[in-house]
């Protein structure tokens, strides 16, 4: 049998569903080759319509009894959704593990340090992050978070200048003028050496004294006086030896070149 054209097929279904006898007759006249097929479809449709289950008019509608549990349709999980879900879960586990292993350790409380208003860099206690929302820096070497070595922390500042704090000086066989300059540089003290300073070789070995005290001790040993100016500078004035014809008497305690209001002591030389 040849395939029925779509429009005729559609027309046959329409006539069969309408059940109009005159429409059937007209179709048969116009398309006699499809009349048999038309009759089959009419039988099919009417048979199907008749097959509708009849409701018993005597039977009453049963009482409505709501169901407690109904398995409502669930969203179907496509493979892509599964893949995304598993990826997110894996990412979560990885993040947790990484954070647990490499995350910031609990900060230890340390007493705060009172800093002065000087020019040295401000030192704050470890753990006092000024921006708590920013993680501590990560070492580029091993990716581990590091705490600074206590030795790397700059010296804590107090209100006392460095040249007044106890220090140690060890210099062997140096010119006296060089030794004074070195002590000044180490302690931040400006040392002004007056003319006529003795050019002697000295060995300096002091512990637990401030720079000014060391200079004064040296003055006693090598014949000069260290005048503390009170502003971070010291003037080192050589004592005048009357035997050298300096113009001062041996018993005089005042140096001709020294400021008039200062007392110059006779230096004590080392044997």
């Amino acid at each position, binding site marked *: 049998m040849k395939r029925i054209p779509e429009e005729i097929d559609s027309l046959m279904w329409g006539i069969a569903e309408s059940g109009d006898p005159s429409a059937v007759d007209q179709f048969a006249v116009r398309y006699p080759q499809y009349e048999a097929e038309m009759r089959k479809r009419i039988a099919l449709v009417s*048979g*199907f*319509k*008749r*097959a*509708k*289950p009849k409701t018993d008019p005597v039977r009453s509608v049963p009482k409505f009894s*709501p*169901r407690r549990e*109904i398995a409502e349709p669930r969203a179907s999980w496509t493979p892509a959704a599964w893949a995304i879900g598993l990826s997110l879960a894996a990412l979560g586990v990885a993040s947790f593990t990484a954070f647990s292993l490499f995350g910031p350790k609990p900060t230890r409380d340390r007493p705060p340090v009172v800093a002065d208003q000087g020019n040295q860099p401000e030192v704050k206690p470890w753990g006092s992050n000024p921006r708590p929302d920013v993680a501590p820096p990560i070492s580029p070497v091993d990716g581990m978070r590091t705490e600074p070595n206590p030795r790397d922390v700059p010296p804590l500042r107090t209100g006392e200048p460095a040249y007044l704090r106890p220090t140690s000086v060890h210099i062997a066989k140096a010119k006296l003028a060089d030794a004074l300059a070195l002590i000044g540089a180490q302690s931040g003290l400006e040392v002004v050496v007056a003319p006529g300073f003795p050019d002697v070789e000295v060995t300096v070995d002091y512990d637990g004294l401030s720079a000014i005290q060391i200079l004064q001790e040296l003055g006693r040993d090598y014949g000069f006086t260290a005048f503390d100016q009170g502003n971070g500078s010291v003037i080192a004035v050589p004592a005048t030896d009357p035997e050298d014809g300096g113009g001062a008497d041996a018993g005089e305690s005042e140096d001709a070149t020294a400021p008039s209001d200062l007392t110059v002591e006779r230096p004590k030389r080392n044997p």
Partner: protein
Amino acid sequence: MVLTAVDKTKALAFDDDIVVVERFLAGDEAAFEILYSRYHDKVHAIARGILLDAEEASDVVQEIFTLVLRHLKRFDRRSRFSTWLFRVAVNRSIQEARKARHKHRHVELREASDATVPEEVEYSDPKIQAAMEKMAPNDRAILVLFYWEELSLNEIADSLGCNVNAAKTRLYRARERFRSLYEESES
């Protein structure tokens, strides 16, 4: 969902059920009984046509009305209440039919000869019954809505959740499958 006054007026003009729905939503629980008794037989016929089992259909009808009771607030009033109800009925019945199909296959595999035979729908023409049993539940659904419940293609489209053209195509295919299966059983 916010409905315009025009939408609401249109819906009310064509659908008396909306008044009953509004009464129920306002707290009148007896109003639901009205909807239930008004549509029980139609819903049962749809379920029975899809499931091909009268007893199972009765059970599913109770589930369908339970779902309607639970989700009546979601009814947006853009379509007739009956169309919305049939959509729930069709979806639920197809879902159950698929489950039942799986169950029946399982029973056949185990050759459980003593298994209780479900109370199947008795058709006047056994060939129609044979063809219907071989069809997929969604094909059965569209034939039931069109030939038994005599819904228009627009109403079928609403009930199946598709547009009219899709409904037309689905009807055409279902009809052709039915014809093919019917003729197979004839020969």
